[in-house]
């Protein structure tokens, strides 16, 4: 049973190499994930670049419809994990895939409609 749970978790949170642009956010709609992502957004200094309201500043606005590196959950996951050539740091050595999905959840919760 324990093994089954672990398998389920692994399936729910695909690792970096398994995430493609169309990979759905396994935590989509999860309020706890949004809140955890919110905390990480402050703790990992994301807000310093993207703003405490996510509307940008030093770095791009994360609430608008413009995405330099793709706005699908899997694409946002990759941008956070691997960084960008334009100076966004790579976070895969500081954050687990779960934490990155939590950040994706938080960012998606702030998207303007």
């Amino acid at each position: 049973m324990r093994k089954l749970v672990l398998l389920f978790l692994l399936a729910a949170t695909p690792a970096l190499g398994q995430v493609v642009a169309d990979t759905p956010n396994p935590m989509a709609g999860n309020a706890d994930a949004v809140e955890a992502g919110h905390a990480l957004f402050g703790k990992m200094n994301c807000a310093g670049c993207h703003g405490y309201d996510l509307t940008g500043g030093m770095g791009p606005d994360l609430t608008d419809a413009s995405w330099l590196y793709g706005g699908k959950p899997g694409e946002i996951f990759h941008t956070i994990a691997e960084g960008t050539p334009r100076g966004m740091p790579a976070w895969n050595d500081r954050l687990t895939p779960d934490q990155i999905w939590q950040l994706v959840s938080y960012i998606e919760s702030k998207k303007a409609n």
Partner: protein
Amino acid sequence: MAFRNLLLGAVFAFATPALAAAAAPGGDAAPAGKSLTGATANLAPNDSAGQWTRQARDYANTRFSPLAQINKKNVARLRIAWTFSDGQMYGHEGAPLVVGDTMFVVTPYPNIAYALDLAKPGAPIKWVYQPNPDPRAIGEACCDKVLRGWAYADGKLIYNLLDDHTVAVDAQTGKEVWRVLLDDVSKGPTMTQAAFVVGGKVYVGSSGGELGTNGWFQALDVKDGHTIWKAFTNGPDDGALIGADFKPFYPWMKGKDLGVSTWPGEAWKQGASAPWGWVSYDPDLNEIYYGTSNPGPRVPSQRPGLNLWSSAVFARDADSGQAKWAYQFTPHDEWDYDGVNENVLIDIPWNGAHRKVMVHFNRNGFAYTIDRSNGEVLVAKPFGLQNWAKEVDLKTGMPVVNDAAHPVVEKKVENICPPDIGVKNWNPSAFSPRTGLLYAGVFNSCMDLTNHIVQYIPGATYDGMEMQRHAGPGGNWGEFIAWDPVQGKRVWSIKENLYVWSGAVVTGSDLVFYGTMDGWFRAVDARSGKVLWSQKLGSGITAAPMTFLGPDKRQYVAVYAGVGGGAGVIRREKGFMPGGNTLYVFSVDGSGIGTGNSQLISQAGAAAPVSVPPAAAHN
């Protein structure tokens, strides 16, 4: 006292002189040619009147041009002579340089240099230099991907790249002469400062006040770029070039290794204090002067202590780099009030004697007149809206901080004035030895501030200030003011809708030029503050204007319109314009070599006759 009352008190304290000036609108405040304050300046190196070979024109940083062809009578006839678009969309901040018949401009990132041939119709490109800086710098530069200026010396155009290189380019050919790497951009530092040259040395400083950097300033050899001396802002005295020559005026800045002991533990190593602003030079004292940025992180509860030498000014021997004195404007800076703004070197009458001083409009809202030979503060008065301090105590040199202005972690503190960007930012002021006044674009705004504890992560921001900024009383975000540096008071002011974040230039005909963020370029009577001419440009103006004589001996005024930089903090305000990248060059009637009335007969590469002789433009 309620904080609201504090705010009103602060408004009243500086509003009085402005009201007095408003009582006599438009009238000349003094006969032509009479200095209103007795202040003068050493305009060394005394370039010929038509040239503009360094960002502030002279070592003293006056941005005063003796040119007077464009005057109060003909300024309303200013029209565009030619324009130049450089294609880059980040904020444009520097002033063009004119050396002989060539104009030099450098774009924001990717820092492309252009030489323009002023002797030919339309000033075509002589050469282009593309340094291809590392794009990772884009993500590390806090306040847009800007460059505040470039320098000319020894036949070379010398400037900083955003990715921590300084380069020198042959001014004739555009070929790179040398390129030196000065820091590691992946850890946070960038370079946005305007290189400053005196003799055989190029003075450059690091940027990165919001990235936990370890700020430094250094002198490079003009010949090959090698480092002659390097002074870290913080840390042990030996690394900061603080030794036996160091004699600060105030006792609280005296002692060993204060750049370590005024920080908790090793916090100074991420204490930023980056010298990203202007440098000035006194040839008699052989001293250079420059300021340092905010301490890192911006959350003060994480770094109890004075945090020396952040938010301060240094005087150093120009040859050895040894510190002569320092003065910390904002001890234990809690609001991001960098000390990097320009230090304008002037001489003033003071209690029956003459004093060699510097005038410094600090982000914190006080304009300081400081004896530059010893660091004594003679005058410190608010030049705009501030309520964080009751005053600067001239006996101690310490500000008297209002209790209600201290930030609190995870609690919103309302109405702290000014916000992080200050009452004035890096946008350089101008000084006229004719009027004895300084001219500066200033801000009228406050913030609601919530601090958040932050951790240091190399290459990420080290910041922690969450702000909502709002316009101050009157609803106007900005003003352009004339300032008396002896009395410490405003002489006149012009209200503008948005922050006035452009530089200024003042001329021998008592005209001051500045630009607004909603795209207006204005000429103002330097004595009365009366607006004599305005032209709407294609973008907001956050660059420094300049003026020069062309090869046709005609006076031109030039300014970039390309809003950006820190000005982006109010990009969502009504009237804020999209970015741009056009240099506008003006002359009386728009006349120039092969342009103006003769433009229909000009051809590519052919020098058409001059349409209106410069002599006619005098009238």
